[in-house]
């Protein structure tokens, strides 16, 4: 029971790391980035490439891989999303186009990674990060990578939450999310804020990807897609764009899925996320934590 609670907290931290970037992009820029999962796997792949033949230590690897993931997402923003935002005035058309671009990008990134890895699962060698298990009495225990994931999730969550509340960039993001036109008129460089946001979103996916590559044992291209579907549930439950909502719902969903796997019919595990998406959208479409009222047009 205690062990399963620890498992749920670790899993929730993984989901938090993964879904914060996605929430940021959707909440501020209306980009539902389906390439987020592919970028996440891409970071794991970079980690694998950096560590398989060399002795590059953990921290530099983490930084390089996260930056690479950020760069890929930034490239996507500069090549496609920016153009769409400028040229497609109708929001509905722009959203659809950006979604489709991200599907295409997910395919391209996934194909490149799977070619480089001969379509097999890959993982950094054990020498990249040696894992130890600490016993907490009885059969209950926790490994150092699990602790690292939880700590990283807390740091990232708090930093992002406070950053958006208190910094100049954070204010710009909030203004952009509320009303892009006015924000532009107020003298905010929307293009730069959008680029920074997408880079940050990608880098967060990258951070999650590196940690997961070490934690899981083996990543493959499909791994990203599976996390993506769970992350959708997190965004919907937490309220799109709400950083705190995403964090709370990440842990809630982790708890729910862990409970289903541990004590329920585990083969229905995927159903938890999908059902939550459906039920939330029907009952409380603004999410559990959004403050403003959801308007029906």
């Amino acid at each position: 029971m205690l062990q399963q609670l620890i498992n749920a907290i670790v899993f929730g931290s993984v989901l938090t790391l993964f879904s914060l970037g996605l929430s940021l992009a959707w909440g501020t820029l209306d980009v539902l980035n389906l390439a987020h999962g592919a970028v996440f796997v891409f970071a794991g792949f970079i980690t694998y490439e950096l560590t398989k033949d060399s002795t590059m230590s953990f921290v530099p690897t983490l930084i390089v891989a996260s930056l690479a993931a950020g760069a890929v997402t930034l490239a996507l923003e500069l090549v496609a999303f920016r153009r769409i935002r400028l040229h497609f005035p109708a929001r509905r058309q722009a959203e659809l186009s950006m979604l489709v671009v991200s599907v295409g990008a997910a395919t391209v990134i996934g194909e490149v990674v799977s070619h480089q890895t001969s379509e097999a699962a890959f993982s950094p060698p054990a020498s990249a990060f040696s894992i130890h298990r600490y016993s907490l009495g009885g059969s209950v225990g926790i490994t150092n990578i699990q602790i690292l994931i939880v700590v990283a999730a807390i740091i990232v969550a708090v930093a992002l939450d406070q950053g958006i509340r208190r910094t100049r960039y954070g204010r710009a993001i909030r203004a952009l999310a509320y009303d892009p036109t006015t924000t532009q008129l107020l003298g905010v460089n929307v293009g730069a804020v959008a680029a920074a946001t997408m880079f940050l979103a990608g880098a967060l996916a990258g951070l999650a990807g590196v940690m997961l590559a070490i934690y899981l044992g083996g990543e493959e291209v499909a791994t990203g897609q599976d996390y993506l579907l769970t992350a959708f549930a997190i965004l919907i439950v937490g309220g799109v764009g709400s950083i705190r909502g995403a964090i709370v719902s990440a842990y809630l969903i982790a708890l729910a899925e862990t409970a289903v796997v541990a004590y329920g019919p585990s083969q229905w595990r995927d159903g938890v996320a999908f059902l939550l998406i459906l039920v939330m959208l029907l009952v409380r479409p603004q999410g559990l934590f959004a403050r403003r009222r959801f308007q029906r047009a």
Partner: protein
Amino acid sequence: MARWALAPLALIAGLAIAACGSSSGSSESGGSKEASSGTIPVTFVADQTGLVSYVGEKVIAGMKLAVEEINSSGELGKRKIVLSIANSNSDTATATTQMAAAVKSNAVAVFGPALSAEALATAPLAQRAKVVDIGTLSEDTGFLPIGNYIYRLTCSQLRYDPLIVEHVAKLGLKSTKIVYASDNPTLSEETTEHMVPELEKAGVKVQGTVGVPSTTTEFSSLATKLESGNPESIGLMVVGAANPDLITALRHSGYKGVIWGEQSATAGALVPAGELANGFFYAVDYTESLPYESSKKFTELFKQKHPKEIPYGYDANGYDAMKAFAKAVSLEGSGPVTRESVLKGMQKEAASGGFEGASGKTIFVGPEHRDIAVPGVLVEWKDGAEHIVKLGTPGLEQQQ
């Protein structure tokens, strides 16, 4: 009539003409198809991309190797096999489209894709066109009954269950738990219908089976669940990255017992788990160090061609499928190869006791002798390589 309605109506007219004209002509003229002298065209509808591309690419590699060997050795006289690859994209519709194009072409035989849905949907096309279809890796029980032109060469786990059960019992393991991919047709059926009863029969207590969707990647909670009750062994009937991920999760959560699995752990799938996967055992139809002469020859050829890679069961599967075909052709003499002669050759080959392939002595089993069976081998994974534990016998499951 408005201009816009013309397009669909023109389509109707066009297809109506075509359909009327073809009602008599569409009966496949397959039997009379004959290759230009000296070449033997065949088509492999392969999962080159998509879900099981990791399988498809290896089977293609093995098949190409066999074609090179056969063509250069003069095994078929001056005649040369010409292999075309058609990508099924791991999807039923594309597979059927490709198979239809293949049976329309002058191919004298076709090789089918790996996924059971694809295999089931494409085989009737081959059967109708009266062209031999050698399915690769298609395990579905509904596949062979589709017709007399349908053959298959597959490393069916069903065949190897006895090897695993025997080894579990031999190690003196009293209890086990099995986790299986609940959305995988083959694995879920095998676990509940075969592994559990056979293990119980061998005196191994099955403490429980747990189904998980194959989309699962984070296994810590599952590992905790599997460990409860301290089973002496845990069986993994899962695919892809779930193998190394489950092993990693189990070992990191402190499980000390034996972990065993099934053939999808082959082809380097366990590499990501590193040392943690040592001692993991499973059964496959080929491993690098098989002692048979024909296997050594394949291994050597493979190493020459791909010096940096390790040959695995999927490579051997493609190689053997092509070898089976070549033997059938050679048994029909040196005349022109037709679709009919390929079928006759296959029947002769089945009656004459099979052939020697990458996986060893291979025989034709099943009700109409269309199921090509290899001996198989139980291997243990240790330090990044498969080590032979026990050699199998072809058609083992028939004897049970």
